[in-house]
């Protein structure tokens, strides 16, 4: 069953053509990794799924809702499609626990007790139950990102988007975050991940998408992509990020 569909999607930032004729279907339960050089439109594509970017033309359907349709409730879609950011974006004025419970309380109308209990379960899952009362500024980057993942999961989303979740982390922090992401993937979550962590891609992703200059150049299952990338640019890109 398809969860996210792009039909001839174009995006311009002024004169800059950020997304060029994107056609893409992502099914429920799929884990899709998007790679490509910087400025290739990966983040723009991801952010448009969450409505953080609007699209210039074409059609983008999430869970059978056309997001360009005025009748579509964007907040409802965002409730179902969570997002994890490169710079974590934890609420600086709220404790770790409050970061996680805020959405469930305000959007899902959960009561305090229930939201706290669920938040503590999620903190257990990401291994940070002892940090519940800490402020984000007291955490390391890796810890912040794990809290951010817990915050997204607290909304019980049907899909999660990850925008370079480990790019801002020190190397020794990356493993913990990837471990959490693997756990989430194994639970059957639909995931779209912009990352250059090829180990993660090989282990977890069903499918790999290579983007360059705003276009999807290659879209293949993970095994055949790594075994023999069809596009020359994909081949070059892979060899660069794997052999450094």
């Amino acid at each position, binding site marked *: 069953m398809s969860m996210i569909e792009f039909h001839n999607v174009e995006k311009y930032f002024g004169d800059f053509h950020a997304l060029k004729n994107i056609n893409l279907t992502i099914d429920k339960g799929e884990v899709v990794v998007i790679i490509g050089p910087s400025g290739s439109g990966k983040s723009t594509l991801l952010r448009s799924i*969450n*409505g*953080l970017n609007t699209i210039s033309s074409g059609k983008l359907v999430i869970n059978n809702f056309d997001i360009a349709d005025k009748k579509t409730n964007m*907040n*409802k879609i*965002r*409730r179902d499609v*969570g*997002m994890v*950011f490169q*710079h974590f*974006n*934890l*609420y*600086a*004025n*709220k404790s770790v626990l409050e970061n996680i419970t*805020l*959405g469930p309380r*305000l*959007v899902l109308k959960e009561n305090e007790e229930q939201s706290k209990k669920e938040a503590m379960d999620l903190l257990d899952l990401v291994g940070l139950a002892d940090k519940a009362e800490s402020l984000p500024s007291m955490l390391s980057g890796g810890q912040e990102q794990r809290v*951010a993942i817990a*915050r*997204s999961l607290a*909304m019980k989303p049907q899909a999660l988007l990850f925008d370079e979740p480990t790019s801002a982390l020190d190397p020794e922090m990356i493993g913990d975050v990837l471990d959490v992401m693997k756990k989430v993937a194994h639970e059957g979550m639909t995931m779209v991940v912009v990352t250059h962590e090829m180990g993660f891609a090989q282990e977890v992703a069903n499918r790999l998408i290579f983007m360059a200059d705003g276009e999807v150049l290659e879209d293949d299952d993970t095994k055949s992509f790594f075994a023999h990338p069809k596009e020359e640019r994909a081949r070059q890109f892979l060899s660069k990020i794997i052999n450094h």
Partner: protein
Amino acid sequence: MINILVRYWPELWSGLLSTLGSSLLALVGSLILGTLFAFMEISSHRWVKFIGRVYVEVFRNIPLLVVTMFFYVVIPMFIAKVNGFTAGTIGLTIYTSAFIAETVRAGIEAVDTGQMEAARSTGLTYTQAMVQIIFPQAIKITIPPLGNQFINLVKNSSVLAFVAGFDLMYQGNVVAATTFNTSDTYLAVGLMYLILTLPLSYFMRYLEKRLA
């Protein structure tokens, strides 16, 4: 100077109270108005934003004295008779609110855009995100410059003297004209302004520390 303070204490004291009253009214009023216009300035509605910007640019670029004179003269022409205290306080409120709007707007814009994006991406509405996440962080950033605005406001309240607002400056002028001892009188008046502004200054510093 002590002589003047003792001899004219009733006048100066009543002036101090008028200054304090006008300042407090203008402080509360300009904080509310200023915050309102700050939100108008960052609105995504073109016309709301436009009105916000025009308000701010008009009132922060006209001298306070002109704004105050305007209200002193114009309100009686169209609405009702007002005394100097009221007209002066209205002028002071509106003038200061333009500066506070800019201060609050800058505070809101200084909060990392990722905070709003994260809040929206979990399904919070714009208003919920503002109230819960952005505004509390903006307030912290805004406290020090807001303190400057409040201190300026107290000092600027001396504009009431020009519209017979019976404030501290007005009473000081009267005492100076009566005694011909200008230097001592204004020295006393200056000290009395310090009684108002120094505690305010320390209070803002305290707030800054407590919220940090």
